């Protein structure tokens, strides 16, 4: 009885794990480990790593600062339109990345919806680091918002009733009770969003271009190196994996159970 129950859960779980983890193992197995140190010493790697870490950190901060209020408002709204708004937020996940990049160009480019109003002030966004951040935010924020909204909906509404009778405004309740209680959800959403931003490629290369030190993040460097030396590309990918597992492991170890 107990044994059957374990098999019925364990076997599919193991299959899922295999589907996800074996390809990573294959990648590691094929890598030429002795070459990795010298591959990573390539002068293009360090700027790309620095840029990736900087832009994804800013993206993560934007997610928290702007995404949390959005998630909160979505979570407490029961308006039928909310459903559709939420579906709309999922669109950046569906959009083929290059099309996402084009959409960003159409928005922030010289002739874009918003960009055309910025151009007179000499503000040019495409091909800058700002563009990288915008591209990453565009693809990553939906994950954050949807994850945090989910946790916020799980809060006991009676806690809010109590807090409000104690004199707490919406904002104060959010800050002092809701956010601390959904911290695991926030950390989880942040992990997803950060990871997605770190791996972002299509929208970035289209919207921000591929300029060393300015918009060439690690995935873009991997793309370029695939053309040059595929072994270097593998080495960089493995470093990318290591960085992300390390950061996510620490983040989760610290903020989640």
């Amino acid at each position: 009885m107990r044994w059957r129950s374990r098999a019925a859960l364990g076997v599919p779980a193991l299959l899922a794990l295999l589907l996800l983890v074996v390809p990573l193992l294959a990648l590691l197995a094929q890598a030429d480990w002795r070459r990795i140190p010298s591959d990573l010493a390539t002068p293009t790697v360090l700027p790309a790593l620095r840029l990736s870490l900087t832009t994804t950190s800013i993206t993560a901060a934007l997610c928290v600062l702007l995404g949390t209020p959005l998630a909160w408002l979505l979570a407490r709204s029961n308006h039928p339109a909310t459903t559709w708004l939420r579906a709309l937020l999922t669109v950046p996940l569906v959009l083929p990345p290059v099309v996402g990049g084009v959409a960003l160009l159409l928005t922030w480019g010289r002739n874009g919806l918003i960009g055309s109003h910025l151009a007179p002030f000499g503000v040019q966004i495409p091909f800058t680091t700002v563009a990288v951040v915008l591209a990453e935010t565009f693809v990553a924020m939906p994950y954050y918002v949807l994850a945090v909204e989910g946790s916020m909906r799980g809060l006991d509404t009676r806690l809010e009733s109590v807090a409000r009778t104690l004199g707490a405004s919406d904002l104060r309740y959010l800050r002092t009770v809701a956010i601390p209680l959904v911290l695991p959800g926030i950390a989880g959403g942040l992990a997803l969003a950060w990871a997605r931003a770190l791996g972002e490629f299509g929208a970035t290369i289209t919207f921000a271009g591929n300029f060393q030190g300015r918009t060439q993040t690690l995935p873009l460097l991997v793309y370029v190196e695939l053309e040059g030396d595929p072994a270097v590309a593998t080495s960089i990918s493995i470093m990318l994996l290591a960085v992300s597992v390390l950061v996510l492991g620490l983040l989760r170890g610290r903020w989640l159970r």
Partner: protein
Amino acid sequence: GSASTDSTPAAGGGASTQGSAGSPPALSGTVTVLAAASLTNSFDVIKTEFEAANPGVTVEVSYGSTATLVQQVNNGAPANVLASAGQSAIEPLQKNLVKGSSVFATNVLEIAVPPANPADVTSINDLGKPTVKVVLCADTVPCGKAAAATFTKARVVPNVVSKEIDVKATLAKVTLDEADAAVVYHSDVVAANGAVKGIEIPSQYNTTLRYPIVTLSDEAATRAFVAFVLSSKGLMTVQSFGLGAP
């Protein structure tokens, strides 16, 4: 911002007549170059050489697929030069943005097989065997168009298992030994550096691809960069990576 409008009209195709470096008024500014990903290696060298010759000028190169680059230019990205692999790829470019265009290199198709050559491919005719798994570029991509023309001329109907979106993906199938053969450019086989073996396609079937360099703005530094690419030094650099003369 590097894009300041210069009222001087474009020099048209006459760029090739200009001499290289050495002109007294020292150039300055930034030249933003968008180049096809397959030009990565050659343009990295050209950038270094040009900057050495013009210390006041910074060249910034962004590599991507030609389609992406064209989208960027059409949608107002601030670029000065576009170097494309193939004429057809730049057809969607909005004409009013183009200040000038010249061919700076050519390329020919070649069959790429894994170094072990598991399917024993020796000529283009072998690609017609049903046991040989062939990958090509998609029909919309320049190398795909060229390959289609070549097969027509050679009267060969290959067993295509995939039409990849670009040369890189096509070549990857062979380097990873998933496909038995691919039709790519000669320069790609050179760049693969031993990861694939090249098998020439006779010239009567082959199609030549022309690489245009497009000027998108009129600054002196931009014009100088284009001239540098088209100079004999620039052309030699490009040809050292497996491309042919214009």
